[in-house]
């Protein structure tokens, strides 16, 4: 028995980490390997042939003009979402940390931002339909005010609708890490700068913003991952107008073109890994936890 306990203690770390490693091996590494293999199988236009190996799926990605437009669309939506969620998330976090005085108000208002995150994502997305539709609230208001005599078409089933739902939800993913790093900024630094004659803008640009870098990095990683892999919002709010990489992959899967979809998925994964890896090289994310 004593020997058993000793053996357990000696190997306890390995025993503690193995459930995580086993789960991620089965359900992350496993699927990635399956997708790599699948992407190398031939697709004859109707079905995937599991014994014919080919690089044709990748070749098609790099020769199709659709790929370029898909990545341009994803890139455009990513840049807009990153830009807006950063400005919005930074301002909101700044308000919570520096403008509010009592901890109780800060926590209460922060919690108010988090609560909608816990309602169903599908429901949250659907909820935009009565707002943006042809008969929706915004169109009723615009026409009632005489600003337009026809319903605005670009509101629903469009890139605009998808971006609006991204900004609504993903701002939180940018705001939370920014709130976290801002709350840890030493107020004495700001006082010292002010005593030395720095104005608000200089304090913002030379003290607060540089100290927020880790928060910006973590928030950006979240937003990049979320935008790159979303197709739920696109399916519900995008109509057929929005052709991002993930959406085109979802279409390929829908029409049982598994091996071309697998190749698309691999390239998308590589692009996301490069972006996130780049950020993690600049900022040591783990030290921030």
């Amino acid at each position: 028995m004593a020997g058993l306990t000793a053996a357990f203690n000696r190997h306890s770390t390995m025993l503690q980490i193995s459930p995580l490693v086993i789960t991620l091996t089965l359900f992350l590494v496993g699927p990635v390997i399956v997708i790599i293999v699948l992407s190398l199988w031939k697709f004859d236009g109707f079905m995937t042939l599991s014994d014919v190996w080919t690089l044709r799926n990748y070749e098609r990605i790099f020769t199709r003009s659709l790929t370029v437009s898909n990545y341009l669309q994803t890139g455009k939506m990513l840049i807009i979402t990153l830009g807006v969620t950063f400005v919005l998330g930074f301002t909101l976090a700044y308000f919570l940390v520096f403008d509010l005085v009592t901890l109780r108000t800060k926590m209460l208002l922060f919690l108010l931002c988090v609560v909608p995150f816990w309602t169903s994502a599908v429901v949250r997305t659907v909820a935009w339909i009565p707002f943006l539709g042809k008969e929706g609230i915004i169109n009723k208001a615009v026409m009632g005010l005489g600003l337009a005599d026809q319903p605005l078409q670009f509101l629903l089933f469009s890139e605009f609708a998808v971006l609006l739902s991204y900004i609504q939800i993903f701002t939180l993913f940018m705001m939370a890490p920014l709130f976290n790093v801002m709350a840890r900024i030493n107020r004495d630094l700001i006082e010292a700068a002010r005593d030395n004659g720095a104005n608000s803008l200089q304090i913002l640009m030379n003290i607060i913003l540089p100290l927020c870098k880790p928060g910006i990095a973590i928030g950006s990683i979240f937003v990049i991952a979320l935008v790159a892999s979303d197709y739920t919002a696109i399916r519900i709010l995008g109509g057929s107008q929005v052709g991002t990489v993930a959406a085109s992959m979802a279409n390929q899967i829908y029409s049982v073109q598994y091996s071309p979809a697998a190749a698309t998925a691999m390239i998308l994964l590589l692009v996301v890994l490069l972006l996130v890896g780049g950020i993690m090289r600049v900022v040591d994310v783990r030290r921030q936890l």
Partner: protein
Amino acid sequence: MREGVKRAPGYWPRAALFYLYLLFLYAPVFIIIVLSFQADNASLSFPMQGFSLFYFGEVFDPQFIGDYRWPFGRSVILGLMVMVLTMSISFLAGLAFRKNFKGNILVFYMVVASLICPSILISLGIGIGFSNLGLTSQWWSGGLGAHLSWTLPFGVLIMLAVFSRLDPRLEEAARDQGATQWQTLRNVTIPITLPGLIGVALFGFTLSYDEYPRISNVAGEFNSLPVELVNALSLAATPTIYAIGTMTTLFSLAIIFSTFIVVYIMAKRRQGFGMKKLKAEE
């Protein structure tokens, strides 16, 4: 505004932006709650037609195409399984990461990769993997794994943050007093990290209960609630979707608020316990 309180420049625009954002965040969900109380034959938009519980009845009507009772039950059970697994696996992993085992950097990168990996890749990969093994993925097998690939990164990252704020001297003190490793874990480490663990549990449940993209290809013949909802949307959108949305929203809120109340009571009790002890010592 109290007299004499001087607001920083730019306070009011920032405050206005903050409250506008809250409006932007809540208004759509609020609108669908209102619209779910319409009478029969209503549309998805305003003006509101009548007032009744008709669409709530439809959610529970077995005759109705999408009988939501079973998907709801499955999502709750799946959420609970994911919650327990996420909590235990993340806690154990958190313990291991403190000791900086060999390969910890690799495992950390695996966790990050699991977070950022495109959902559709995981979903397709698990589905094809199962069928190549001659199995059919079900919500409780492949679906469970797909969800763990999504909840574990959150769980592990939260536990890493919790453990990095845990003072190791507390555990050393317990060991110095002769506590065994198990006693230290049971009476020191777990009680101190409990609020974090509850957070992980809450994240695990709600992230799974809510999840659509990763489970979409691997739920098998019986769908989870979000999959059922998306399917219903592409078939025929009626205010029933709003009714189910209202109910799931209220359900999530009930869980969150009861969790907060439990955490609050626990914090109070612990504080009270400490105070009593201090008084007794006086």
